[in-house]
């Protein structure tokens, strides 16, 4: 008969120190409800953290894009409400603070007359 027999099991050997270690093993009593509650809460927190870490690049990208879009819309709205620049009498206005011209002293030179 073929079966998957577990090799090297403890039953193949004589007990070590008359089973002293087996007799000394601890059997901790666990408050299973408290354990499960704590574990399930930790699992939820961990999975929430993991999903936040997974989506955070997308969230950051989306927020940057939305801020850029908002700024663009605001600029467009401002540009339509801006006052147009008006030029009086169709001439360009030039403002000069002070002009000093040095004129030569004495009589003005005569212009040659062409006949």
């Amino acid at each position, binding site marked *: 008969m073929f079966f998957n027999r577990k090799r090297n099991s403890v039953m193949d050997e004589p007990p070590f*120190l008359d089973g002293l270690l087996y007799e000394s093993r601890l059997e*901790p009593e666990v408050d299973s409800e408290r354990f499960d509650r704590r574990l399930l809460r930790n699992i939820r927190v961990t999975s929430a953290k993991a999903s936040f870490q997974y989506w955070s690049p997308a969230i950051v990208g989306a927020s940057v894009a939305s801020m850029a879009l908002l700024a663009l819309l605001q600029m467009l709205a401002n540009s339509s409400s801006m006052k147009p620049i008006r030029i009086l009498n169709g001439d360009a206005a030039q403002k000069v603070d002070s002009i000093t011209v040095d004129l030569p002293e004495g009589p003005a030179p005569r212009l040659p007359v062409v006949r």
Partner: protein
Amino acid sequence: MFNIGISQGVATRGIEDARFLERCRNGDESALAILIDRHRARLIRVAANILRDSNEAEDVAQEAFLKAFRELGSLREDRAFSGYIYRICVRLCMDKLRQKRAEPAEFDFVENHSGTAIENKIVVHKLLDQLSPDLRATLVLREMEQLSYEEIAEFMHVPVGTVRSRLHVARERFRVLWINATKEPR
């Protein structure tokens, strides 16, 4: 006949674990609770016997479950979940023991050793502290958890030959420590 029962039981448990894992992956929290319930007690007991501290064992078991569920993607075969989670637990225990090794406990012998079960437990606890983490974990998994060499090799992620040699050394050292600790002082 007894061994057939054990192997069939292990195989069935593996298949059931795989079924619950599949449900967990689909977001079924009740399957998660069932999986925890199936492995909780044994996982805590393994950790408690390696660390000889029940409170610390609970923390390690919690950490092992968390790590196992977080890294489920690295599990190649769902039926091997049991081995996978115990391997994580044993590794965490070894890490804890290595951290503690910085302050080894001093212990010479027991005065008027009467050999009661409680006294033996205390002496065994102190003597296990004298062994290195590898030897201690191997000895505990074999003698207290009654695991086969193959299971210990799987849990400790070492070849079966290494388990044999570690177990041989651990038994010899423990035997010498036990004799020295319980013999009558001259």
